[in-house]
């Protein structure tokens, strides 16, 4: 912690990072936007882990939430709509030394990027994936997203969204090789912090669905849970998200849930009445794709030359 080596060398001391080191450009989100709280939390988790700014990469797609990299002082990759995950997977593939973060919206991840979502969860590369789910397309001004509640009025469905919303948790849990699934509201900073921190410490894809307030286009998406916290079910367990009594007190409903119990996780995720909050599922043994993709990094030029000549030998006449 705190970047201090046992020898207390000057170099290490000089490189103690403050929140300022992780700050990027000034955030341009609307007042009251849930993204701001997530951003601050990311800064804090990075600071507390003393991640080297030059070795951290924040990757995103397109959307309000996908502006995240611009507001973090590390390296960043603000990609294309829907493609945050494969871009991030590529960054990590041959650079396992980089700390990779992904910020993606509900449209970005669950709609245009849905194919990548499924496969990235299965690849289970070592990274944090934050889904800013505001139940709406924010940047393009209020179109229906896959998680827009049924009946909610949007610019593409003015008389109300037709279909029941897609359940990101059951889908993610259903993907083979899933290793970490958590859900958290943006308006509880201590719980948000602990959840993102746990996802960061997890080796594999730490998938965090954040219920994100968009007071401008989808104020009713989070309001029921803000106003009636009993509609949420706090998951507690010694292997779950650490939380102090102060946090617990804010949630009237609790349930002890072992995050390695997949069947129970699925049942909780399916519950449409009480929204589970905390760590639903965790598998520390799931295969991590970058363990494979990063093989051979230490191959020397001499070895490459030998291998290349051997390859040519096979075609020699």
């Amino acid at each position: 912690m705190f970047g201090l080596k046992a020898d207390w060398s000057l170099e290490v001391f000089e490189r103690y990072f403050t929140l300022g080191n992780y700050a990027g450009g000034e955030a341009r989100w609307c007042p009251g936007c849930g993204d701001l709280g997530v951003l601050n939390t990311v800064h804090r988790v990075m600071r507390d882990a003393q991640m080297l700014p030059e070795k951290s990469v924040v990757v995103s797609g397109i959307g309000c939430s996908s502006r995240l990299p611009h507001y973090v002082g590390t390296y960043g990759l603000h990609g294309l709509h829907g493609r945050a995950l494969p871009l991030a997977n590529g960054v990590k593939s041959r650079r396992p030394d980089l700390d990779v973060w992904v910020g993606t919206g509900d449209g970005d991840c669950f709609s245009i990027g849905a194919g990548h979502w499924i496969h990235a969860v299965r690849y289970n590369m070592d990274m944090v994936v934050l889904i800013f789910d505001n139940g709406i397309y924010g940047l393009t001004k209020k179109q229906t997203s896959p998680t827009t509640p049924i009946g909610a009025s949007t610019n593409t469905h003015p008389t109300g969204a037709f279909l029941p919303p897609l359940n990101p948790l059951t889908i993610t849990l259903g993907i083979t090789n899933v290793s970490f699934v958590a859900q958290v509201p943006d308006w509880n900073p201590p719980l948000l912090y602990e959840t993102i921190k746990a996802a960061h410490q997890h080796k594999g894809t730490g998938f965090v669905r954040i219920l994100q307030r968009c007071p401008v286009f989808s104020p009713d998406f989070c309001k029921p849970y803000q106003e009636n916290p009993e509609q949420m079910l706090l998951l507690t367990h010694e292997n779950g998200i650490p939380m102090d009594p102060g946090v617990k007190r804010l949630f009237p409903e609790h349930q002890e849930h072992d995050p390695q119990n997949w069947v129970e996780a699925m049942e909780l995720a399916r519950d449409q009445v009480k929204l589970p909050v905390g760590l639903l599922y965790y598998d520390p043994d799931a295969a991590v794709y970058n363990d494979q993709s990063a093989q051979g990094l230490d191959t020397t030029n001499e070895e490459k030359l030998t291998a290349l000549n051997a390859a040519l030998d096979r075609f020699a006449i």
Partner: protein
Amino acid sequence: MATPTGTETASVIEGGFKQPVQLDEHIIEIVSDSGEGAQKCGQTFGSISGKMGNGVWTVEIIPAEIQPPARSPAGASGIRIRLGCRYMTNMGDEADLAVAFNEQVLYSRIANGAYKEGTIVLLENKWATDPQEEIREAYATAVGEFRNNGLIVHELPMEEECLKLTSNPRKGKNMFALGMLAQIYARDVDKCLAEIAQTFSRKGDKVIQANQDLFNAGCAFAAEQIEYHFRVPPYTTDMSKPTIITSGNQAVGLGVMAAGMELVSMYPITPATSASHYVAEVFQNVGGFIHQAEDEIAAISFAIGASYAGKTACTITSGPGVALKTEMIGLAVMAEIPLVIVDVQRGGPATGLPTKVEQADLLSAIYGAPGDAPKVVIAAATIEECLHFVILARKLAEAFRTPVILLTDANLATGVQPYPRPQIKEEWFTAPVDRSAWDEHVPPYDWDPETGLSPRPIPGQRNGEYVLTGLSHTRRSKVAYDSDTNQVTHKMRSRKLAALLKTLKPPKVHGDDEGDLLVVGWGSTMGAIEEAIDHLREDGKRVSYLHLRFLSPLEPGLKEIFSRFKKVMTVEINYSDDLKDPLIDEESRRYAQLAILLRAKTLVDVDCWSVVYGHPLQPGMIYKVISDRLKKQNN
């Protein structure tokens, strides 16, 4: 096309000579139902001939369907080997000799114009005595028809001979056929046996021995029963120069490794996939990793992610894949990420002709992106260039901080040819970036105002932290929507192509520097066009050829070169309207793709001839087309 070789062959057949006949070249086909090993037979024959110093071009005959019924014209599977006493650059015109395991598959080859009067056919005769009457009849009818069409058909008991050695001749007949061909063409038997041993090395000694026995039986049979003795002398007696023989896709794979790619990210698509198959087989030996992504968009995104993180990466695909990757190519242009994209072109649009050759991705490669997205596009003309151009592409991508599209096609992909073994240089594959700290005063896009070039910070480099974005951005990579930034940054990206152009020399004309007609081409058609041009020039025609390898930017000096010819035309494998067709006139006519580029670039009235028959252009066909044009032009 009636070549001297053709007439000589015909005389052999009529006379039934026992004397060996010396030839400049010969084209051989082996055709069968799929799964009978014709391709393995032909590949082995081709590589033995290469080892004996012949010029060789091998191309697979791929059935139209995956599981075609047996004995059907749609099922023709096989291989063509063009063998010569000079360097071979294409598949040539009609075959001189064909080995066929049944008569039906010959129909599709005949329909494709693969044979001529006098083509020798060595045909399996077991169908003549098949228990089923329909088969016996079909066989008899076909043999009659073939003979009426001038084919010299010899009915041979290949299967019966094989049955003396194996209970499953379907699996062994190909080596028997190889033995026959080795005898007819006097191939070096030791080399053949060694080649067979290598081909079956993974299957163990027993299998090797069984196949060698079949080969020997084929030789012995031919020595007793077949009158033809052809001698195609080597073109190079200097076998000390190291040579390799590969397909174009294997060459791409070798190029990927020689170029120091650390990552290939791909999604399977014919005819590109076999390049990735080859890479997958050996990539770990050079420390590389091949990622099979969930789709083409993910494949290129993955590669761009890796390249952003400082790792050399490429994606290998075909036209439909490039279409899906288009938006990401735009991101790589906008954010100036080096990336190599190999497009092994096939017939389009949509799923088109997946296994067949076409050169119709040229314009979409250059222009197929939203907004102005200048990028480098180059095309390989030969199998050897498939290897070297990947290395070139990586260098260009890094030096010019840009995606580079390398166009090859199904003809190069499956063609097999010997060429000089590259002397691998360490600089080709050395990792591109240093990890030392970045000078914090240098912005991530420190565009040189004259060239548009700039160095690139890589994650891990201290003080280089920046956010790559596909939005309009300043030197500091800050999002900026103002008019000046957008205008100036477009200039910077475009300027890089001008800077690259300044480093290129005008292309060399094949033939005289002036004349009646200049033919211009690009990609895999070079060999066939040059061969046709050489014949025309031997006939005294004032025609020359210009081959282009850089398509974006286009090579310099074109207008000046064109000015020395009365007429300029392109020859391409893509669609263009024919002025003889209804409704088609100068106004409605749609030109071939290179012709469009050249017309726009030079304001010269460049004509074109292009077809989409799904097969490579043949020298004879081009010869005829150009002769006709010259006649019309000179009238």
